[in-house]
């Protein structure tokens, strides 16, 4: 492993039929940083995340996580390599309690998981579950069915699910989508703080520029499936190509 490199996306392409959703995109994410991917709608951001997390195999290119190639592996395997993901559209277990949601995520990492005695034993993961619920202000809601939470709370719950699998790299796909400006501010601060305290590396998709500029160490810009810029927030803000893509293309 190169010093400090956690995730390497090497010249990844992904086509759906004739549509090239990603064209030779490369990224290098270093351990401990918050790396954001921005771009107009349809730029290929979510496709990139889905390739990295294992939902799609890339048409070409490689993905390397912590020095090991993960290209084409399934999401359940990649999750065990230390990558957890949240989705653009809230993806939780709607019909069971908030507590049970986080419990089933947390028990994925106990030694018992996947072994025969898991048929008749149940691990005690109360500690980590309660800790996560407290961090996201969900303790008082833990007996509610997840589907009864507000939109913002469901977004938080989904981050809890991802964190419960104890990842090294956290992929957040528009975590503040659908939040009010006030909620967005709070969520951004919380994500930053939790990433710091857990020593997490965060790969973030966001289209709210104020969120991205405030939270990111580095930013990559996608446009029509290609990376057109990469660098620290100040450089991205003044990059003429980026300005052109955002002002000339579909503003979102």
């Amino acid at each position: 492993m190169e010093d400090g490199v956690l995730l390497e996306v090497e010249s990844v392409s992904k086509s759906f039929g004739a549509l090239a959703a990603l064209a030779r995109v490369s990224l290098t994410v270093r351990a401990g940083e918050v790396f954001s991917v921005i771009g107009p709608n349809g730029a290929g951001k979510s496709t990139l995340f889905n390739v990295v997390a294992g939902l799609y195999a890339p048409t070409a290119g490689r993905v390397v996580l912590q020095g090991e190639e993960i290209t084409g592996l399934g999401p359940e395997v990649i999750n065990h390599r230390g990558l957890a993901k949240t989705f653009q559209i809230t993806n939780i277990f709607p019909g069971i309690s908030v507590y049970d949601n986080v419990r089933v995520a947390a028990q994925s990492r106990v030694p018992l998981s996947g072994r025969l005695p898991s048929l008749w034993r149940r691990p005690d993961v109360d500690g980590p579950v309660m800790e996560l619920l407290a961090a996201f202000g969900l303790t008082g809601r833990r007996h509610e069915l997840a589907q009864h939470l507000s939109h913002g709370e469901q977004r938080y719950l989904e981050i809890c699910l991802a964190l419960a699998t104890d990842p090294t790299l956290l992929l957040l796909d528009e975590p503040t989508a659908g939040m009010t400006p006030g909620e967005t501010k709070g969520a951004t601060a919380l994500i930053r703080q939790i990433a710091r305290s857990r020593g997490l590396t965060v790969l973030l998709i966001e289209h709210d520029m104020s969120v991205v500029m405030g939270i990111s160490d580095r930013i990559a810009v996608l446009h029509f499936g290609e990376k057109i810029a990469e660098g620290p927030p100040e450089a991205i803000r003044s990059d003429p190509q980026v300005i052109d893509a955002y002002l000339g293309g579909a503003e979102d």
Partner: protein
Amino acid sequence: MSKAVSWRVALVFGALAALPLTPWMSKYYMLLAFDALLFGAVAMSLDLLMGYTGLVSFGHAAFFGLGAYSTAVLLERGVLSLWLCLGLAVVVVGAYALTVSYFATTRRGIYFALLTLIFAEVVYTFFRYTQTFGGSDGIQGLPAPQLLPGVAIDTPVRIYYLVVAYLLLAYLACRVLVWSHFGRVLVAIRENEDRARFLGYNVQRYKMGVCLISAILTGLAGALYPGRAAYATPDLLHWSISGEFIIMVMIGGLGTLVGPIIGGAFFILLQEKVSSYVEWYSIIVGLVLVLIVLFAPRGLLSFRRAPRGRPGGEAA
């Protein structure tokens, strides 16, 4: 299991054990009670798939029938040990269930149901047209199996106690299973399969696991059947039987274990009682089932359960 639940279980099974002592339990009623409890047990094992994992199997008759044929083949050849019959059923049904579930779990929803149905139809056709196993007549006139050498399970009361014991063990096993680590993952798969994958669970493995467990429990119930009926026929493998199993689970209440037991028993008793009065009984049975689905869509159990008791929720 909580204390209150343990007491309730002890009470119910105590009552079931005392049933043969009551004066009006004729031979006919003993066997009817056997059927009610046996099919209740089958519905309960199907509930592991339908209620907890969200998989609808349209081929459970094959597991039941293969269990019955396992016993029949051994009894026919003079191997009378009940334990060998059950053992063979586990091996045969287990091997078949692994094959079916390996293919069926690669598909979701209606395709899963169709694949289980297609496999079951193959098994039905095989037994229906293979003369080694008696073709359409099946294997008839079987001797009673023996619990121990010389101890034959040859009276209605004995066979009844056998099914009560089986139901108790199967119920306890299912209760522990849905409470366990494994059971929590099943519910997660029912709620959101993709999310479960992204949390690191090999969903197909869990689905195959629960198919295997459900199939073996159903197969064991099937293996007890020739002890009561003295035959195994292809009718036991017919797809309409699979349909009846699904109805039993539905009218009892998905994801409750107890509900499907009641649903199975209710279905058997209703069918038997109505058919002894009129020949067009299936119309009446169908009507009753439609009424249940309309007015108690969450099953018979919902009449006495608070609406908060979500399938597979905290109840454990």
